[in-house]
């Protein structure tokens, strides 16, 4: 590993004297009927992420390239794209990790493309709303101070609360690709996050919605949503947990119809 003093002497941190070719999906909504790929040669730098290379293209090669990004530190969830066919946050994918290239960069799979690498998010936002991702109280309880929650109660749902809505899991989910009405990994993980929250009372309400067609039962446990998740939320596990709970509910309703309301 190079020390900072040798870097200072050479005066060129990260420069490798090499280039890499990016094949970027282009779709112009006023001219094209389907996307095509444009090739761009950019410097290969050891300290660059794929997003830095896209910024280089936009700044120096083609200012018309459209893509989303914001924080550059894996928390805003804006820069998700298909990198060589795998959904990735481009701000967290080292350019050297996909060298020597050419690297195929496309918009997230299964979503409607607006322009180049930008996808339409309304669809996902609708799914999020559907699962009621907020604390539901059945009583009209107006707390005078904050709800008390122990660290152990927090631990139960914490993992599922780390979702940054980057939609990589949807791009990795063939079920969503085949059936766009599927509620999908992130929204279902978030539903489970609120179900497991000690302050929440909306589990029955959510199960009414999510155990219908298009909810949890569409999932066939392919498991790639959990593999591509940059925050290790494990939506696949959340959905299986949800299936167990919904199954318990179902049997309770059928075996003891009088027990449920």
């Amino acid at each position, binding site marked *: 590993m190079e020390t900072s003093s040798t870097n200072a002497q050479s005066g060129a941190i990260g420069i490798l004297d090499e280039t890499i070719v990016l094949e970027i999906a282009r779709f112009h909504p006023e001219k094209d009927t389907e996307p095509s790929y444009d090739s761009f040669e950019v410097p290969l730098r050891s300290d660059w992420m794929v997003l830095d290379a896209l910024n280089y293209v936009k700044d120096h090669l083609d200012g018309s390239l459209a893509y989303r990004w914001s924080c550059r530190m894996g928390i805003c969830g804006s820069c998700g794209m298909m990198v060589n066919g795998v959904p990735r946050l481009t701000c967290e994918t080292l350019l050297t990790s996909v060298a020597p290239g050419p690297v195929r960069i496309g918009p997230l799979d299964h979503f*409607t493309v607006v322009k180049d690498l930008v996808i339409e998010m309304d669809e996902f936002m609708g799914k999020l709303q559907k699962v009621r991702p907020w604390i539901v109280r059945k009583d009209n309880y107006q707390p005078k101070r904050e709800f008390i929650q122990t660290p152990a109660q927090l631990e139960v749902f914490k993992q599922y609360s780390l979702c940054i809505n980057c939609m990589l899991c949807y791009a990795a989910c063939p079920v969503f690709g085949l059936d766009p009405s599927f509620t999908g990994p992130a929204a279902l993980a978030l539903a489970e996050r609120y179900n497991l929250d000690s302050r929440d009372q909306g589990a029955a309400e959510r199960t009414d919605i999510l155990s219908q067609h298009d909810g949890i039962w569409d999932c066939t446990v392919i498991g790639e949503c959990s593999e591509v998740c940059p925050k290790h939320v494990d939506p696949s596990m959340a959905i299986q947990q949800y299936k167990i709970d919904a199954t318990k509910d179902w049997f309770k309703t059928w075996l003891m119809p009088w027990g449920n309301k």
Partner: protein
Amino acid sequence: MPQYKVYQPATYRPRMSPYWFFDRWPYLKFMIRETSSVFAAYWAVVMLAQIRSIRHGAWAYARFEHWLSNPLIIILNAVALLFVAFHAVTWFMLVPRVFVRQMTGSGAIPDELAAAPNFGAWIVASIVVGLFLVGAI
């Protein structure tokens, strides 16, 4: 679907390839796992035929054994074995994790540890059933 359409002349909606499961290894693995169901159904039918031949006497049983000794059937069974064994491994890796999580409320136990008892039970079950099948008991 987009709600905002004023300055949005057209959009592109991708369609999934009919061969999507060949696109990436994890998807192909999923499809291999799911296809094991065909071989599970096949073998359940074979076992029904086996029971039937046992009931119908020595001659019927000999005919069943003769059918099994066809090289093509042996190859088919070997393939079925691979698929069903793949199902078993994926099942034992996944399902205990789900139950551990359900019971403990968190992933407190490492995946390998959660799966280990199943592999142990698998070996024991195989030995017991195996001894019966070769006529040792």
